């Protein structure tokens, strides 16, 4: 009788099938025992963000304005126009400005009054006054080239001149302490939003964890005489929330960074030691 298949060929084929079966079985065991059946996906935060409003509850203060622009100190109102800012001397411990009022030159320091307007602070090219719970800002007269730079250079004499000179020449605008809050120049915000590297040079931020959970971001250093030193943040402060939004993830922090240009006010909740504090900023 003649065989249809050679027994040797049949044996080889069988051995091949067994080999394939063993490999398939091997992978099957690996898959069942060690490998996950689903992947790890990043869940987008879809929860609505809490609306943020800055409400002043201090007595004897004007009620919340109907138009948000009315509280902004950008538009000088009333007789503030009579005051002309001639020069600024702005050091870390003292602010002195020279103004011209009714053709008379007067030197004012922080807290001094002129025509009912109280000097609150000054930036590199502007001064801030307050009157009847409203804030006003006047810009430096650009009469002579170099006037401004002279006053700025003077102000840095106690610190590191080269550092501050470079930052003030590159970046326009400043941060002014206006009592309960600080006024931050928008151009400054825009500059740092574009140059993230400059942020890391001036302020150190590290994550603050409790166990595995992120509880905020700790300030590890603040460069002296930098814009960030004027924000009121100190080494060791822990930033817990920004505009009421808890900063418990990098994504939340990134959200603030992405939208910073559209913000006109900013509120940081920080813990300093055991004390919880709120730092308020007005961006204009």
């Amino acid at each position, binding site marked *: 009788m003649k065989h249809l298949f050679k027994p040797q060929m049949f044996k080889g084929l069988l051995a*091949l099938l067994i*080999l*394939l079966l063993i*490999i*398939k079985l091997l*992978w099957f065991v*690996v*898959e069942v025992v*060690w*490998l*996950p*059946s*689903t*992947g*790890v*996906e*990043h869940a987008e935060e879809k929860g609505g963000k809490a609306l943020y409003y800055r409400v002043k509850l201090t007595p004897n203060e004007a009620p919340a304005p109907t138009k948000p622009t009315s509280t902004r100190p950008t538009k000088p109102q009333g007789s503030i126009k009579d005051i002309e800012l001639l020069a600024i001397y702005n050091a870390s411990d003292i602010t002195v400005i020279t103004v011209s009022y009714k053709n008379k030159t007067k030197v004012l320091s922080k807290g001094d009054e002129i025509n009912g307007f109280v000097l609150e602070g000054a930036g590199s090219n502007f001064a801030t006054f307050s009157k009847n719970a409203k804030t006003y800002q006047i810009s430096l007269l650009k009469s002579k080239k170099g006037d401004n730079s002279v006053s700025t250079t003077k102000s840095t004499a106690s610190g590191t001149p080269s550092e501050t000179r470079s930052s003030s020449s590159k970046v326009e605008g400043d941060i002014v302490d206006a009592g309960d809050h600080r006024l931050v120049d928008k151009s400054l915000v825009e500059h740092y*939003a*574009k*140059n*993230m*590297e400059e942020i890391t040079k001036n302020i150190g931020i590290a994550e603050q964890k409790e166990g595995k959970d992120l509880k905020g971001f700790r300030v590890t250093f603040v460069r002296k005489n930098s814009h960030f030193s004027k924000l009121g943040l100190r080494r060791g402060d822990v930033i817990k929330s920004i505009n009421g939004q808890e900063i418990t*993830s*990098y*994504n939340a922090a*990134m959200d603030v*960074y*992405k939208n910073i240009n559209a913000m006109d006010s900013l509120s940081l909740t920080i813990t300093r030691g055991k004390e919880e504090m709120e730092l308020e900023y007005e961006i204009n």
Partner: protein
Amino acid sequence: MQMVKKIFITLFIAWFALLVFMPKQALYYKLEEELAKNEIKINEKAIEEGVFSLTLKQASVYVKGIKIATIEELTLFTLLFYTKVELDSLLLDDSLKAMAPQQTDKAVLSHSMLSPLEASVNAEGSFGVIEGSIDLKERNLHINFSETKEIETIRSLLKKDEKGWYYETSF
């Protein structure tokens, strides 16, 4: 001679079967698990399994919850003795464009058993063309820019020698 031939055929079939039957998607999920331990997550629209490869379509890469980049197509290819990761059209997130070049048209990371302690990197994009190598023993990365375009954002990280710009770091 016949015996040697048989052994080679068996080995070849075993190698081929290992690759074909490899549970590529499940192995990728395992890789995702390991990456997640380092707070790196990849969200992909679709996964396609090939005979020797696995392709991810429209993958978004998140690091510590922040979206870093979107990759149009990411292919993981292996022959066991040669492995290659190919990225097509990588677009860095808008929020990071101030820190690094935004567009990478193509990037290839490959590793061969012929030089097991070295992996090579090639890429081209808005920054120009780069060629580099990763020394797995010394744990350092060296990238040469053979052509430079928009490197302003990363210029401070680069060094220059007679061949041109290069980037070096250790990990």
